[in-house]
């Protein structure tokens, strides 16, 4: 049913759960599995160094995220293609999903307060609205 599954993993607990379920689905449907991780850089920075230091910190973080993801995929017997992209989470994931023509996007759900959801909104909400394919939100 799903030829190409994309999973968004930001290194959080929700991202890990999404990855595990995506691996199970990929095995069940014999799909290719692509993991997308987005390095979020600060918007409207004051100095180049603010950007460079954030990028370095994100590089470190996603180095571990990638290693952990490969372990999970290997344990489940699934081949994982992973990429780390700098940008804004929702728009970058949507762009990558469109580019790879994924049939399904799997994302984790991070519970925020009702006030946060109302004012700022979560990435999962935005992905459900903007993604060009079905979205599975894992809680």
């Amino acid at each position, binding site marked *: 049913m799903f030829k190409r599954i994309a999973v968004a993993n930001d290194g959080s607990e929700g991202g890990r759960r999404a990855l595990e379920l995506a691996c199970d689905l990929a095995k069940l449907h014999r799909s290719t599995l692509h993991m997308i991780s987005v390095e*979020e*850089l*600060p*918007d*409207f*920075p*004051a*100095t*180049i*160094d*603010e*950007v460079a230091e954030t*990028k370095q910190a994100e*590089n470190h973080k*996603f*180095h571990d995220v*990638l290693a952990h993801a490969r372990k999970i995929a290997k344990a489940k017997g699934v081949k994982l293609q*992973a*990429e*780390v*992209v*700098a*940008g*804004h989470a929702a728009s*970058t994931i949507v*762009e*990558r999903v469109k*580019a790879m023509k994924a049939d399904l996007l799997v994302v984790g759900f991070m519970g925020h307060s009702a006030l946060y959801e109302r004012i*700022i909104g979560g990435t999962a909400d935005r992905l459900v609205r903007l993604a060009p394919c079905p979205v599975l939100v894992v809680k």
Partner: protein
Amino acid sequence: MVDNVWLTSALWIGLALVSALISIRLALSVALIEIMVGAIAGNVIGLPLTPWINYLAGFGAILLTFLAGAEVDMDVVRRNVGASIGIGFVSFLFPYLGCMLAARYLLDWDWPQAQIAGISLSTTSVAVVYAVMIETGLNKTELGKIILAACFITDLGTVLALGIVFASFTAWLLAFAAATVIVAWLMPKIAPWFFAKVGRRVSEPEIKFLLLVLFALGGFATAVGSEAVLPAYVIGMALAPAFQRDPDLPHRMRVIAFAVLTPFYFLKAGSLVEAATLVSGTALIGLFLGLKMATKFIGILPLTRYYRFENREGMYTTLLMSTGLTFGSISALYGLTNNIIDQRQYTILLTAVIASAVVPTVIAQRWFLPKIGAVKQEV
């Protein structure tokens, strides 16, 4: 409470901490959040400015400008000297003249006030452009390097204008200019030699040496009616190659700047914003933002055609170069601190500067992203 130095310090650092946490949560620049937090605190609870707060804020501005100069990549400027100087100079000159003349003849501001308007709105935010470059992968392309180099030239124009326009043209100004040029020429030779001699110590003699140079030249600048950030930027540019070879020293200076000093600067900048003017001055804020963007377009877009940028790349370049934040706020605050502009004019200009960091970036990213794939990497 103003008399209690430690309680006042706790308040300001508390606001800085809140700003840092908000910036991390929202992935927004801490400088922008500090300005907003300062504006809210200044209008809600009042943030009285004491001499020592003004000193720390001024120190922060000097260090910020020095570190901005130290980020200039002179190799990139040299490799694309025609395009970068051409685009950078026009990027400064057109909004400077356009906004200054509009302030003078449309709004009937005095000439010094109009100058501040022109200088504040002539800037380009190198950091905003750099962040966008990283996200799009353009930082690795020749186009991206030309844009960045042009941004450095624009900021140099802004800093020079701020340092020269309000200075008294006396023999002392010439002496200051000569001293700055000589020190800038000597520093790339002396500083590495001195750093190698003293080595890395807990007492940080390298940082103390740099601060001595910045304070001495800053004091000279102030004495002749110029502005301390001018020599700071020039010395930063002179040391940029050395700092790129050894990034640990600028990193340590950034820690000092961002932990303790620049929060006082940005919080102060925000605290002086008048809430009432944000509402009553909306039209003027929009006017200045529109003028900045329009003049950048008139100046830069034709040049991008001349240097054979594609249409989309030309629009993208022009929009990115319409951004501004740090130097714009420094210029506006300079005007207020030196009683050239009043608080209403300051509010209008600072808000227009902040809007110029946001609006062109959003438009560029949404509609004019060049067709280059985002840089994918496996970490």
